[in-house]
């Protein structure tokens, strides 16, 4: 970037409003219609809000919390805060009041913008505990009519004040924006954290803009891209794709109508640049497969035949390799009959670049999308690096790596296998937590990722597990739990898996069934069940999952390093692991230690010779009430495969 290039998001906003005032900047589906705002309109909305905030006493350096689903108004609140030299602090919208109180208090938040009554109620409930919180602004006035608290203000009325304010002082907005520097704090994002209290990651404009820009150049993205802003606003990925990169390149970010309509909104919008964590790609595939089971036999035959063709030649065609002419014709035909209509139904027909990250993606799942001609790739990054560290380059995509470091990023693997990086996107520190900062960020600039990995033969990074989770079995062989769990989770029937083995004689597992997939499977076999718990306890379901575990064992047996990690015993949990119970993070990562402590009797039972385990757990309902759940769970012993003498021969046989 040249020295005169805009170095903050508000400056970028003004530039887009000048260069492409009539191009759409935001869309939102509301009342069944896509409403849009041009860059000029967004600039005006942001100016009005900034004016209002300023009139209400917002000063440079103040923090403003943002809580709600993806809405243009909430994105504008980010821009307005940054324009005034303040710091936006987005909070996960499904946080319970306790988690929210911690963040508000820790970040010293004075102002909050809440989407609706639901979020405003949470803020009201914790207001007492957050003495610094002065003003709450709500976007949707529904149900708020009879709230008479003086610190509550409607979004529209704040903007109205801002317009009056601007009337008296026209140059105010531009003047405030001009005061901003690239080295200022752009945002504080609280990471959900698999252990302990959330930590506030401090990122500057320079951090985010340089990384976002590098990734845009790497992929050749332009101001004509379309993205769907549908992941939580408090998550760095969402912030980068739908805000930072949209402002850098000048493309349009569209917000879905509601959380439940994302799939149909995706289909209507047809984004060209798309991000989804693996579980979303998995859900889509599960739904497609279930629906195909119900289709007529002609359609089903066609579908499976052409999927076979795609599996054979789809990848080489996407990677622009040489493919026999006859196969090309077949693939072309398949595209007309199956892949094209399928991609269109899923809303993925215009995708130029799609990413998945956050968790490992199953190789079958990954190649399924790629073989249809969707350019799905993996990347590696985290909140602390403003996302992008590694991206797979077109033509060099593999299902089990995360690609090479992008421009300006350096990566090295430490002695103990931990991945470290240096990047212009490296965070400034954890807000008010110098201890954690010192642990993560070395004085020479290298940042610890906490991930364990290595570079493969082609120089691509491969991540196997969280460094702290990699352990040893009793006899000293390597135990990488996530590696095994991922293999289990690649089966459609298994929603979550937690394996134990560190310091133990063998590996044992908790499994969570996928209600939709297993429920459908059971219905097709006339197996009756009334609840999740009942379905999970069925012998037939145990048989089904045992088959999966045995296949994983065969896979593991083929890899000498992990052959001893085969699963000997498993049980199926009677309840779905839930973020409300603290068992998963808000981004649905399992909290291994919490689960191990909570289900201690079951872990003990796995490592005994009992045929069943008993457990009583406390559960939290969606409305916050608590209840108790009692269950006796069967335990299955699984035959393990012998480590192959010649792994090569095994591979051939399979």
């Amino acid at each position, binding site marked *: 970037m040249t020295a005169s290039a805009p170095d903050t998001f508000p400056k970028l906003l003004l530039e887009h409003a000048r260069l492409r005032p009539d191009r759409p900047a935001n869309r939102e589906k509301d*009342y069944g219609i896509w409403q849009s705002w041009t860059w000029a309109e967004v600039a005006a909305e942001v100016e009005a809000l900034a004016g209002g905030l300023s009139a209400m006493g917002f000063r440079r350096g103040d923090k403003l919390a943002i809580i709600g689903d993806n809405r243009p108004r909430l994105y504008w609140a980010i821009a307005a805060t940054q324009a005034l030299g303040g710091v936006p602090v987005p909070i996960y919208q499904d946080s319970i009041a306790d988690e929210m109180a911690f963040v508000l208090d820790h970040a010293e938040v004075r102002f909050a913008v809440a989407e609706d009554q639901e979020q405003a109620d949470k803020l009201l409930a914790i207001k007492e505990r957050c003495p610094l919180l002065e003003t709450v602004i709500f976007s949707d006035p529904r149900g708020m009519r*009879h709230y008479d608290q003086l610190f509550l203000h409607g979004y529209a009325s704040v903007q109205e004040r801002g317009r009056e304010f601007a009337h008296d002082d026209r140059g105010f907005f531009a003047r405030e924006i001009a005061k901003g520097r690239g080295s200022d704090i752009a945002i504080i994002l609280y990471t959900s954290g698999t252990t302990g209290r959330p930590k506030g990651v401090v990122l500057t404009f320079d951090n985010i803009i340089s990384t976002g820009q590098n990734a845009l150049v790497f992929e050749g993205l332009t101001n004509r891209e379309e993205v769907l802003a549908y992941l939580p606003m408090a998550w760095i990925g969402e912030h980068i794709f739908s805000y930072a990169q949209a402002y850098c390149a000048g493309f349009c970010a569209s917000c879905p109508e509601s959380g*439940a309509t994302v799939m149909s909104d995706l289909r209507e919008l047809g984004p060209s640049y798309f991000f989804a964590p693996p579980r979303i790609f998995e859900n889509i595939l599960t739904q497609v497969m279930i629906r195909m089971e119900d289709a007529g036999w002609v359609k089903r035959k066609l579908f499976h035949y052409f999927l076979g063709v795609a599996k054979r030649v789809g990848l080489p065609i996407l990677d622009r390799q040489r493919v026999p002419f006859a196969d090309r014709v077949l693939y072309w035909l398949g595209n007309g009959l199956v892949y094209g209509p399928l991609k269109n139904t899923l809303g993925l027909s215009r995708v130029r670049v799609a990413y998945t990250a956050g968790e490992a993606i199953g190789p079958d799942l990954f190649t399924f999308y790629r073989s249809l001609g969707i350019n799905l790739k993996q990347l590696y990054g985290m909140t602390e690096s403003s996302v992008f560290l590694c991206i797979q380059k077109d033509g060099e995509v593999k299902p089990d790596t995360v690609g090479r470091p992008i421009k300006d990023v350096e990566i090295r693997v430490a002695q103990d296998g931990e991945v470290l990086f240096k990047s212009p996107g490296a965070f400034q520190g954890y807000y008010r937590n110098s201890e954690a900062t010192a642990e993560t960020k070395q004085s020479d600039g290298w940042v610890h990722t906490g991930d364990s990995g290595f570079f493969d033969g082609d120089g691509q990074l491969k991540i196997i597990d969280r460094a702290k989770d990699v352990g040893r079995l009793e006899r000293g062989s390597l135990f990488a739990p996530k590696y095994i769990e991922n293999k289990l989770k690649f089966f459609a029937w298994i929603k979550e898996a937690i394996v134990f083995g560190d310091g133990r004689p063998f590996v044992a597992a908790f499994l969570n069934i996928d209600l939709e997939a297993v429920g459908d499977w059971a219905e097709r076999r006339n197996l009756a069940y009334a609840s999740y718990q009942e379905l999970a306890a069925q012998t037939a379901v145990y048989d089904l999952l045992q088959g999966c575990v045995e296949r994983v064992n065969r896979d593991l047996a083929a890899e000498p390093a992990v052959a001893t990690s085969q699963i000997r015993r498993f049980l199926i949990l009677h309840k779905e692991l839930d973020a409300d119970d603290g068992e998963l993070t808000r981004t649905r990562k399992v909290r291994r230690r919490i689960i191990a402590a909570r289900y201690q009797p079951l872990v003990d039972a796995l490592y005994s010779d009992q045929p069943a385990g008993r457990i009583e757990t406390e559960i939290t309902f969606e409305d916050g009430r608590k209840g108790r759940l009692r269950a006796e769970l069967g335990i299955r012993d699984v035959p393990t495969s012998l480590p192959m003498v010649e792994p090569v021969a095994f591979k051939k046989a399979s």
Partner: protein
Amino acid sequence: MKRIGEPILTVDAISLAFGGITALSGISLEIRRHEILAMIGPNGAGKTSMLNVINGFYYPQAGTITWKGETRRHMRPYQAAAQGIARTFQNVALFKGMTTLDNIMTGRLLLMRRNFLWQAIHFGPARQEELAHRTNVERIIDFLEIQAIRKIPVGRLPYGLQKRVELGRALAMEPELLLLDEPMAGMNVEEKEDMCRFILDINEEFGTTIALIEHDMGVVMDISDRVAVLDYGRKIADGPPAEVRISPEVIAAYLGQQADPHPPGDGMGGG
């Protein structure tokens, strides 16, 4: 705060009998503007009959109905609908094969001015009109948070959502008085909470007067401004929830003559 106004509907000394069976005997009842009135009572007490009299399904043998200052012997269903009385039913009565959107759109039928031919060609004023109605329906869909099922035939929806769609259709008529017959029957706790929130929001946002029949006492005590208790076709109590729940007659009706001195608690009634 909301202001409860003058009576919008008064039924005076209504009696209704089917052959030898007396469903309602000499009931007088007022429904006041902007209030939420709950009608409770044991099974067969005459609650649904009362709603049916109000919106004209049944013609009472005696008594009068005064709706917005006009007194008559009985209402006719068409009249009631055209003059701003909408209702939902104990057993969902939707067009199963039609989508949520279309079902709610039927609630606008009485408000449509263009005739069938105009609408068939869907041009000019007819088109304008349809757009206006569609906007209104979309606001209801947004209000009831059912965007995700907009295009799904209601027959395929779970019961709780069907109830919500039925409420949407009643709202589409822009009623002044909304009659809800057991809006929460057969719902789980979460669905009930949602429905309560919607009923309160309708009452607050649109100022709609609501008369509802409900068995869940917790719900009745929480959301209603006034409770009328029916038993064997007579009204035995009428007043604020707190008063009604300690009325000896009400306790006797629910628990039999050997009345327990303690007031009835949540969850009383039902079956």
